[in-house]
Structure formats: C-alpha cells, structure tokens
C-alpha cells in the first residue's frame, strides 16, 4: 500500500522532475540561462500563456476545446488599446468619451467575455461541436480585429498601461502576479466550488450530469465565457508589454495553450485534469522555448523539438493512466 502511494507521489512529481532536468541541461550548455534577468524574462513571457491555458483547462475538462483564444486575445487587446488612445465616439451624440486605464482594461475583458459567451451559446443552443464553433470564432474574431484596427497597430498607450506589462511589484514582474492570481483563483474554483465540480461532472459524463439536475448548458456557456475573458487578460498583457496592439497578435497561441494543458496531464476527452498541471505545462513550454533559443537551435528545429516534447508527455501520461486501470 505504501509502495503504491509512494509510486503515485513519484508520478505526480514527474513533470516537476522533467522541468528540473530540462533546466539542468540548458544551464549546462548556456551560461545565460541561469541569470536573474533571463529567468524573470521567461516568467514574464509564460504569464500570458498561463492565463490563456488556465481558461483552456476549464474548457478541456468540460470535454470541449477553444480554438478561438488567440484571435480573442488580439481583439481584446485592440479594443483596450483603441479605447485608451482615442476613447469612443458615441454614434448619435457626436461626442468622444475618454477611458481611464482601468476602464479600457475592463472593456477589453468584457469583449473577451462576450466573444466567449457567443462561443458557449453557439455550442449549447445550436449543438455545434466546440471544435467547429470555436474554429469559426477564430476567423471571426481575427477579422473583427482587422476591422477594428484597419490593419494598423495601435500604439502609445500611456505609461500607466505600459507599466502593467513591463513593471515590477515587490520584486516580481506584474504579469507574473496576474498569472499567479489567475492560477490561485482557478485552483480554488475547481476544487472548492460547485461550479468546478460541475465542470468535472459534465466532462466526465454530460448526460449523467444533466440527469443529476445540473444546468449543463449554463455551466458550459460560463466556461467558454471565462476562457474568453482569460484570453482577453492575456491580450491586455501582450498589448501592454509591447505598448502597442498588433492586429496579428496571438496567432497560434491556442496551440501553445492546448499544449500546456496536455503536457499538464489533462485528458482531451474531458473529466480529468488539474490547473496546476497546466501551469507546469506552460512553464515547461516556456523554458523549452527559451532554452532552444539560448542554445542556438534553429527555429525550424525548435518546432520539431516542441512537438516531440508534447508527444512524449502525452505518451507517458497515457501509459500511466492505463496502468491504473
């Protein structure tokens, strides 16, 4: 008995051990890796993926998928930036309304929430498969971003806003604080609230959940809305770090987020997974990205290596899950 629990603990530590080994290897071959500047830099970059991937984890545990997060991120960033730099023209009154930094950020997050809500609504009301619904949203939100920005970046967003992405608080980069808060909240929600339990139940067996009196459509819609809001948070961080909203920001970010979720041991078939696993997955991807650059690996090979790491992680996870049965 103690043997099995020991083995189980070791299994849970496996991703951590992998991360440690990864760091060790990179540190051996590059002396720039283990510097304070570089490490904070890596953390800062990872923060965006953590925000998105946490939302993605909720979606995937509910047995769905959200491919639209990269585009939603760009749209939310553009909305926030445009409100900051030029405010908003009220259509019938011909007046401009200015936005405070906080106001613009809230507008951005709201926009992310609205797009997520649309995802959830299409999926639950019209019974469109999440893959298809969010694939459509991926294109739609990107198009909306282009329309909103007319294809040009929106820059010069003011010092307070730029501080969000580049500044420090208590010796830690602000994006890292935000990612940490998002993580803690998500862990709490998944472990300690009814909503979290419902997400697991729906992902595990949607019909049983419905028959247990769970308002499945409501819960699922909320999950996609949260994923949209978290993508928006990521978008605001990206925009702030660059002090500019790029119309093609966030392209392919959905893949990094899904990769983090999968490396973190969450099952794509739903019902099983942990927020902390995803965070670890995001850190592993971030460190790997950074390490491959530092080691001077060609960008083409970087992609091959990243893909293989994802595969290996899933294969290891699979074999362990099989063992349990």
């Amino acid at each position, binding site marked *: 008995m103690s043997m099995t629990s020991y083995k189980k603990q070791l299994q849970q530590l496996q991703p951590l051990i992998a991360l440690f080994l990864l760091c060790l290897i990179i540190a051996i071959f590059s002396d720039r890796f283990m510097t304070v500047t570089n490490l904070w830099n890596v953390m800062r970059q990872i923060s965006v993926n953590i925000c998105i991937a946490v939302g993605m984890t909720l979606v995937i545990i509910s047995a769905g998928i959200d491919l639209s997060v990269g585009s939603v991120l760009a749209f939310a960033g553009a909305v926030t930036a445009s409100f900051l730099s030029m405010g908003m023209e009220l259509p019938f009154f011909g007046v401009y309304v200015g936005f405070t930094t906080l106001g613009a950020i809230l507008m951005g997050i709201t926009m992310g929430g609205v797009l997520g809500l649309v995802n959830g609504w299409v999926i639950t009301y019209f019974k469109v498969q999440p893959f298809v619904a969010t694939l459509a949203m991926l294109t739609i939100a990107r198009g909306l971003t282009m329309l909103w920005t007319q294809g040009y970046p929106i820059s010069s967003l003011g010092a307070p806003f730029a501080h969000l992405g580049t500044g420090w608080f208590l010796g830690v980069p602000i994006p890292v604080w935000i990612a940490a808060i998002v993580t803690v909240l998500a862990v709490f929600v998944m472990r*300690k609230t*009814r909503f979290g339990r*419902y997400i697991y139940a729906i992902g595990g067996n949607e019909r*049983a*959940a419905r*028959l*247990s*009196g769970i308002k499945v459509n409501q819960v699922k819609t909320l999950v996609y809305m949260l994923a949209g809001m978290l993508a928006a948070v990521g978008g605001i961080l990206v925009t702030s770090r660059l002090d500019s909203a790029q119309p093609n920001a966030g392209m392919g970010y959905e893949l990094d987020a899904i990769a983090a979720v999968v490396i973190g041991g969450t099952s794509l078939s739903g019902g099983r997974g942990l927020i902390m696993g995803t965070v670890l997955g995001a850190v592993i991807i971030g460190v790997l990205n950074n390490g491959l650059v530092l080691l001077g690996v060609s960008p083409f090979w970087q992609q091959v290596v990243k893909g293989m790491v994802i595969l290996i992680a899933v294969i290891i996870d699979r074999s362990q899950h099989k063992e349990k049965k």
Partner: protein
Amino acid sequence: MVSLRNITKQFNGVYALRDVNIEFPPAKVIALVGENGAGKSTLMNILSGVYPDYEGELMYKGEVVQFQGPRDAQDRGITIIHQELNLIPYLSVVENIFLGRELMTPWGALDTPKMKNVAKELLSRLKLALDLDAPVSQLKVGECQLIEIAKALLVESDVVIMDEPTSAISESEVCALYDIIADLKASGKTVVYISHKMKELFTLADEYVVLRDGQVVKQGVMAEVDEQQLVNMMVGRALAERVKCQDRITDATVLHVNNLSLTHPVKEGLLLENLSFDLCKGEILGVFGLMGAGRTELLETLFGLRGKPSSGSFSFDEQDMAFFTSPNQALRYGLALVPEDRKGDGLVLGMNVRANLSLSVLSSLENLGVLADVQEKELCQQYVERLRIKTATDQQYVGNLSGGNQQKVVLAKYLATKPKVLMLDEPTRGIDVYAKQEIYDLIREQAALGLGVMVVSSELPELFAIADRILVMCDGRITKQFKTEEATEETILQAALPDQ
C-alpha cells in the same frame, strides 16, 4: 469439449477464481450461474482468450491450450457473445456482421453481394427482418443484440458462450434465440449460457454450474434442482419470502397524469398516447411493457427530458402545473428518476463515490459559495451506511464498484434530493440476486416513508415482488392496470402483446 483443471486467477492478490474444475461436454447447454462478482466474467474471459495468463490448465478437444487472445480462441472455435454491444453505429448491418472477416472477390475488392446473401440467411435464422444497408445506429437495442449473435454465428464455432444475451431483447426475439440454441445443440456444439433469469435457464439448460466467490459450488443436471435450490446455492443462504405490507399506501395522490401524449421526435405518429394514471403517497406502481412499449419514454417525459408533451395535464403534490421541462426543475419539485443505464446515465465513472453521491445536492452543501467538505463527507457516510454500499472509502472511483453497489450509489444520489416521487427504470438490471433483494428492500423502505414510487421493469417476477399495482403498456398506450394480487403472468403478458 472443454475442461478446466484447477484454474486460478488473481488480480492484485485477490482471488477471482480459485481451483476451478469444470467439464463442458459437447451437445449440451450449460447454465453458468452465480452472483455478480462470483467469477463468471473472469471464467469466460479465460475461456475466450481475453486473459491469457492464469494458473491451471485449459483442455480443449483433448489437448492443453493457451489462447493468445480473443481472436486466437475464436479461430480455434470458441466464440463469446458479450453482454455489451460492440457494434459500430454508422456502419451498416452487413458491414458490422462481417467486420474483420470481410469476404473478398478474387481481385481483392469487397464482395458485397455475397456478404449480403450470407447475412440475409443468418438474420432469417434469427427471424429478424432488417434492411441490411441500414446503419446500426437506427436499430433498436434488441436488434443490435441479435446482430451480435449473428456475428458469432458467422464463425463456425464449437463452443458458444452467451453472456446475458436476452437482457435487451423482447419475448418474440427470445424465442428466435431459443431456436438457434436448440440448433447449435443438435449439431453437437457446446453452449455456455449466462443469465440471471431463472426461467430461461430452466427452459434451456441441460446442466448447471454454480459459482460463488470464485469457486465452483456445484455442477449438476438441471432436471434435478428447482429454482429455490439453485438460488440458495448461489447466495449460500436462503432468501426469506417477502410478506407484502400495504398499509403504507395512502389515498393522497402525489402524481396525477391525464391524457399525456408525446409526438415521435423523428417518425410520424405518437410515442406516447393518451396516458392517464395516478400515484399515491406510499404506493409502489409497477410499469410493465415489452421492448419499445414506451416505458422509458414515459419516465423521461415526466422527468423533463423529452421536451413538451403534445397534450395532457399534470399535477404534482396536489398542485396543477405544466409538465416539467428539465431534470433540474423536476428535482427541485421533488421528482427523481433513477435511470436505466447506470454507467451511461447514472454515474460519472471517473469521479469517486462521494462526488457522485453529492452531485445532485451540491447547492445545499455550500457555505458562502464554498463547498463544505465536512458536510459532504457526512452526507456521503450517512447514505453509504443506510444503503449498505460496499466501498473501501468514499474516495473510491465508482467505476471500480460492482454493479449492485453502483446502482446503490445512483439511488443514493437521487434519494439525497429528498424526492416526493421516485421513479426507477429497470432498477436491478444486471445485478445479482442478493443485491436485488437489497434494492427491493430499499424501495419498500422509501414507500413506507411516504414516497410515491414508480418502477419500470421488464421482469415480471420483479414487479410481482415489489409493486402494489401494475400498469401495462403497449405501443405507447396503457392497455391495462392491475392490482398485483389480481394479476397473473399470463394476463399481464396478454395485455403487453401488441394486437396481431
């Protein structure tokens, strides 16, 4: 034909089978009986090559064999028809029957005409008239089960193992199956027949083997035992005859349905037609009908799963209201449904006992929006004790429990909602004799507490054992209502059979 010598099989140190010796002679139907967990499935899995590792010897046609897998066993002439359906929904009937054994033309293309001919002949043996090109997803469960049987017949086998083959098929289909079994026997094959239905066993089997706790209790000739003796051997203790106590029945109506009709979602016509009945507090109402009679549809409509009925009025707990539109609403008013398919509809298999049990009542276990672990644990403990759910801890995955205990968890989940009316759809399907009795006791207990109970069952003895009144359904209509003591199997079956 086949003999098992000192077969022993362990799982993680737990004996599933211990020193099992059985002879399966040719040209005989052998009934394999035992409670769930007695080792029947393990034994069949060894026999059919699913478990290639075990202790002891398996003799087949006079030599020791060790099958490498199910396909190996099948190629050598041992076929098993599993209880679970293994059909591919979007492939046609023919494609499913020949899956993995497709007939080819000399040029290597699929020989569809030939396959269709063979399939047609097979299905006619099963007295099944089906469109061979129809996808299996359009068929009824009973028909799917017969296709499984057809698949097994396609391979010429010397030993055919049938695991609960009649659990989803109707009376007339059962007759066709009996004929097939008789044919197999006449041509010298061995049929191993697993079923919980005693009547079938006594009709079909020549010999019996009783398993209990992984050991053979007795092997003998069917004609020398009666039902009671066989059941006693299975459980190792005599089941007391239950005395009916009906003073729990009150005359307060808790559920009233008038002229309920429901249109068919895809086809023309009605799925349910003009159903009217009452249910009183403390009463157990049985609902009987053959496959497709509309029993499950009735319960699901009341539970809000089937959308708005096309006509009818409804009152619940002496309040007139519209029919429920969602399970959530039904549960809030106090109407619970324990669904038929416990793995598909009743449980989240990847979650533990506690999380499953509390799923319907989580809102009452919250404290300022946070789940109260202590209260959840207490609730769970209370029901585990009350329903005698056998589980090591409440952190055990429900997927690891036996069928009877899984059913109790589903029951507990809905009892925790404190319903006024409890509806149960086939509450004892696929669970063993002893667990059945426990479920019956629990149902009676709930009725005695003043709940109105509706039980849908396709097993008449079950309804005779627990129901006070029996509704008989056929083709979406209620054809007859009986007080249980006035009904006989014949009168009920007559009412359940469609007019010729």
